[in-house]
């Protein structure tokens, strides 16, 4: 049981690292540090960097949270199944 819980936490942390890296790249790198580079390109009338900073980053944030909620639901269910199985085995 301890192993299953430790694995669950490790997967949770790995998921967070991936999602927070995307979060930081989208907001800090693309929308602030590299905004002038992105502004060279233009999409639908928007300079790309400006669009990322005022629109795109916000859409990405929403998606990141829903991906996290969805994936964690799956991890929760799998952990529950493992715990149920191991307890059944012991009994």
């Amino acid at each position, binding site marked *: *049981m301890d192993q299953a*819980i430790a694995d*669950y*936490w490790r997967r*949770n942390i790995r998921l*967070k690292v991936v*999602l*927070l890296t995307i*979060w930081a790249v989208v*907001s*800090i790198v693309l*929308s*602030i*540090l590299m*905004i*002038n580079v992105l*502004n060279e390109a233009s*999409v*639908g*009338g*928007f*300079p790309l*960097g*400006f*669009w990322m*900073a*005022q*629109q795109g*980053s*916000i*859409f990405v*944030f*929403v998606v*990141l*949270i*829903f991906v*996290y*909620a969805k994936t*964690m*639901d799956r991890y*929760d269910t799998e*952990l*529950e199944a493992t*715990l149920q199985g191991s*307890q059944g085995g012991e009994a």
Partner: protein
Amino acid sequence: MSVELWTWIVVGLTFSLYIYIATRQRAKDTEGFYVAGHGVPAVANGMAVAADWMSAASFISMAGIIAFLGSDGSIYLMGWTGGYVLLALLLAPYLRKFGKYTVPDFVGDRYYSQTARVVALVAAIFVSFTYVAGQMRGVGIVFSRFLNLDIAVGVLVGMAIVTIYAVTGGMKGITWTQVAQYSVLIVAYLIPAVAIASKLTGMPIPQLGFGGVLDDLNAIQTDLGFGAYTDPFSSLSTLNVLLITVALMTGTAGLPHVIVRFYTTKTVRDARWSAGWALFFIAILYTTAPAVAAFAKTNLLDTVSNQSIDQVRAENSWFVSWEGTGLLAYEDLNGDGLINYEAGDGNELTVDRDIMVLANPEIAGLAAPITALVAAGGLAAALSTASGLLLVIGSSIGHDLYTKVLKRGTTEAQRLRAGRLAMGFGVLVAGYFGINPPGFVAEVVAFAFGLAAASFFPVIVFGIFWKKTTREGAIAGMAIGMIFTFVYIVMTAPGLMALDPWFFEISPQGIGTVGMIINAVVTYAVSKMTAEPPAEVQAMVDSLRIPEVASAYVEAGKV
């Protein structure tokens, strides 16, 4: 019917709705009063968070601020949304699993220390009071602009209404009222935005249409000497844009009135989903605001720039009516009868940023009921945020101080009464500062976010993710981070001592990021030097990290 009559009708109807909801959802015990009985569904909680979060400033002022900042307005757009990613991934699920009522509850229990609890409750009260005074002021301003009431009278009406629905309803009443308030404010924001988008671009979806006006806007702005609208770092340095954005993000994640909303869901799963819904509902307004900013700015410049003042007044009734309120002011400096709106000393037109949202319905030629709806939306935004903040003030005094620190209130009825009295006291103080605002209203936001970033955010994240964080580390980190941030803001903020920002020219709004880093370093170093937390505290941290059902197995395994 006149706009004013319509406004009375719409405001009266929405206020009656809030009171009706609150009386139906009256809290009967402390669990209902502080956390709505842990019974709020994910989507409803998401809406309530969105209303709780979006204040009078988001609704009335943000588009105007962006219109004048241009590209750098992204500090608010990203800062006030990106924090929800941190909240959803790092805080909300674990605090929900913790399952108590307040942020000081968590800090006090996790750091096995009454001192830590007291530091946290002082910070929670200070942050919430600085923020709530602005909301009460916002109610007064809406009443004065739309209904020609004195601001003080407007504040008193706001106090009365909040007392009725928040103090009696508690978190349970506040939650469902906030759901209604979100609905009112988002409709009130979107209708004028869609109308003005259609008028200027022929594309009703503001988020898509606003790319179409940017070339024009850049050209006019460059002509007038303002600099291109979409050019970044025109008003702030790159370092300040970065630090302010991070301070607003981490501050958002650390604001107690937002955090406690996640205590109200049924399960940890629901806490995670409701964070997603919250940001979804917030994003609807936050992606519309920059579009409104660009439309309103383009329209304003097109209408007034180098036009004859007589002609502008004759053709635009909104121009005359907003001149009447003082939000627009024209002075013909060179006596040519034209409006010279430009950067520099020759400028003849003063524009208050709030007009970008408030005048929208008239500019877009919408009927009187829509203007009335905008007034109701502004009130909904201010009242929903005020009630969330007052709940934090009530719970900090009534629960953390009275029950947990002073160990008073032996019966449930006494504790509930303490919470209500504390909230009532909060209404009075907030109302006082709403009528007599301190001279540094603009800096209040810097204070609230800076202090939340420098105190709560690191201390809660450390508490969950590093079991070996000690009481001494957390107290030292919070205290030093907060004192540093507080002193720097007092020294550099324009309304206070107004010294030149001495620390790498960092603006007072961005200093919370530095305070947070200092807090983290101190917390880590002191924790390394002091004795490990007791075993039961480490076990509690373990229990926060697993879902409810796994906890049941752990419990069963022990027996």
